[in-house]
């Protein structure tokens, strides 16, 4: 297998891990089972290992020099999806009073994140080959990002009605922020894919 193929496969694997991490997070929140969050942490560590291998491949000469910075930036963004999911899991783990889970939008945003990662995961190799498919993907992710943003706004409004302690409030707020940020990062990944495709 060529070095370039190994890099693309690596990125694809990282996106699959991000999808699994989002699914695990959703299940943990839905079941109110914090033990399931361990899977998110494990997947993030696995993603880190793949990122290091990809970096090594690029260092050894995969891709033409002018393409390397953008390819590496894409790897970093995909890694950020995993980091953001881990951050959500960490914040959720620290919340003691889970009464805020009455807010329905939290489940909707978790579902949205799973869908975004699923779209990235299923279409990644097609996106690299087909600019029209990528264009469609960009539109869809943009719509979803806007929806996630609206949901965050609604969650924050509803959160004001809950009476929670300082630390719970702090971690709940960070949890919601990071849930919404995932769609922002996914949008960045799509933009970077467009730039890469332009340079090919």
């Amino acid at each position: 297998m060529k070095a370039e193929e190994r890099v693309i496969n690596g990125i694809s694997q990282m996106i699959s891990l991000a999808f699994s991490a989002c699914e695990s997070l959703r299940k943990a929140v839905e079941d109110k089972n914090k033990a399931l969050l361990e899977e998110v942490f494990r997947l993030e560590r696995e993603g880190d290992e793949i990122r290091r291998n990809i970096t090594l491949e690029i260092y050894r000469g995969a891709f033409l020099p002018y393409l390397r910075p953008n390819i590496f930036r894409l790897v970093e963004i995909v890694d950020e999806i995993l980091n953001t999911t881990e951050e959500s899991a960490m914040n959720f783990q620290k919340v003691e009073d889970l009464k805020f889970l009455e807010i329905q939008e939290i489940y909707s945003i978790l579902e949205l994140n799973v869908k975004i990662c699923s779209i990235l995961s299923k279409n990644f190799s097609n996106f690299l080959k087909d600019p029209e498919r990528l264009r469609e993907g960009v539109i869809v992710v943009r719509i979803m990002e806007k929806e996630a943003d609206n949901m965050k706004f609604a969650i924050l409004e509803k959160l004001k009605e809950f009476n929670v302690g300082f630390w719970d409030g702090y971690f709940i707020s960070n949890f919601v922020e990071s849930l919404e940020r995932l769609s922002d990062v996914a949008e960045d990944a799509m933009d970077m894919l467009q730039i890469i495709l332009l340079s090919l």
Partner: protein
Amino acid sequence: MNVEEVMNKRVEFVEANATVLEVIEKLVNRRIRSVVVKPKDEKDTYGVITVRDVVFKCLVKNLDPQKVKAYEIASKPLITVEKSMSIEHVLSLMERFNIARVFVKEGEKILGVVALMDIMSAYLVRRLL
């Protein structure tokens, strides 16, 4: 594809006697495009207010949004569908009644809303999943 897969569960309600200003506040603060107006009494039914209603039935007529009540500008009756209904059927309803959204009802409870924008997103997402 059916209604349950596409519907948006973010439905906000206002009392029939709420002012239009309160409605505008809700539309802006919650970043939504419509609010459901609760029935005024037992004989009344649910209604809906969109930005269109606010503009054409209140602001353009130079009426004071602090004085006009929600029930006065609400569009009625609320067009509702079952959550198991197919999207094709919903689209034909939207076309027939020239409306951009329908509400999803289970018994007397409103579960969600399906707007043209939700249908467009769902079709696009389905192509990629």
